[in-house]
């Protein structure tokens, strides 16, 4: 079931990307969809880290790949002028685009590397979740407003 959700989420993100490129979907919605996808994938890993789900390297790699997909496209959805609206993106993103992109690149690299070397046991998943969580926090600390 979780797998179906993950696949569906990935498909939704992918089709939304096409829609965005065609100018049909706004940037803020795209950002939200992307982060939701990352959250779903993180949930798969956290369940393994907590021992709520058996550790499954294949599933973990899948989750990491969907995170990586979002990481690779996420930067496209911050055009000038998309700071206003129903968003928690901080104006700091546009003031310091280089810094923001640096954090995004770290997420791209971290998820790509981890997907190639998927965790095989609970301790490894816990370590991975800690590492990824640190990345999430690092970016949300600076580039998201309080919410």
């Amino acid at each position: 079931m979780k797998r179906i959700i993950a696949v569906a989420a990935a498909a939704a993100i992918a089709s939304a990307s096409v829609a965005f490129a065609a100018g049909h979907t706004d940037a803020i919605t795209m950002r939200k969809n992307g982060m939701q996808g990352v959250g779903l994938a993180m949930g798969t890993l956290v369940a393994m880290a907590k021992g709520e789900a058996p550790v499954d390297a294949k599933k973990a790699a899948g989750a990491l790949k969907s995170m990586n997909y979002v990481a690779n496209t996420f930067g496209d959805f911050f055009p000038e002028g998309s700071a206003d609206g129903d968003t928690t993106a901080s104006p700091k993103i546009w003031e310091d685009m280089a810094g923001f992109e640096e954090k995004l690149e770290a997420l791209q690299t971290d998820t790509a590397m981890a997907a190639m070397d998927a965790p095989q046991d609970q301790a490894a998943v816990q370590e991975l979740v800690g590492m990824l969580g640190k990345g999430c926090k690092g970016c949300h600390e600076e580039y998201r407003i309080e919410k």
Partner: protein
Amino acid sequence: MRKAPATLVGAAIIAGAAFWILSKPQPLTDAELSGLSAGDATRGETLFWAGGCASCHAGKDTEGDNKLKLGGGHRLVTAAGTFVTPNISSDAGSGIGDWSGADFANAMLRGISPSGAHLYPAYPYTSYARMSVADIADLWAFMKTLPAVSQPNEGNELSFPFSISRGIGLWKLAYMEPDVEITPEPTDERIARGRYLVEGPGHCGECHTPRTAAGYGGIDYSRWLSGGPAPEGDGRVPNITPSDDGIGSWSEADISYYLETGLTPEYDSVGGSMVSVQQNMAKLPAADREAIAAYLKWIYPVTGDGS
């Protein structure tokens, strides 16, 4: 120019005198300071993380042992002006290395500097004042073990009337109420521990509760922990009461896990100024995080977002 009527001058003198008397700093008495023992640095370390000292006084984005270097210098940009956090390291020249335990207790429990001046409540002594004198002694014992950082900082840049520090005396008279019970005394020991940590050293209510007097007043106890405006920058600090607008859907385990890892039950991560707070909470014993979680499920569920 016409002379001001004598009665007006008289009224001004009386008002000035009243201001001077009412705004006078009130340090701890000898009796109150009698509980100030040598303190236990190990116990003090827990209070150090619970109190979040490093969030404002260590360098920005620091990790590991750098969180123990309390040179200050953060610029807190608020509506009242810019506060520059002071050096509270054990350096005698630029820090607080030459303070006595009583000086430290007066700062924490009364918001008064060693020279007897009022400190600005950007330093959350209104919550710290709920701590026990024994805990202050333990915290002081720990603070003295931390490295000296020689780093003088710039002063605050505040606009009038916030630049008049004596005015804080009146603010304290109106809004500093460490004896007011925010929540009733719990019978459950774990909840009682959580209550102490949240209402005292943790000073969660300082940001998570709306304030009276258009945001410049005290904490609105009737809307305790129901959220408020971000003290710096855009956005809102969330409602953390167990209501639909708060974290009512979170279990105690969810709250503990969030405080430990920074991940919400929806697998979002902590962000903004809460990142540093969560990093501090992660350093507490697990039982303390669980106590905080139990307390947050026990308090009155308030709706709204504190606006």
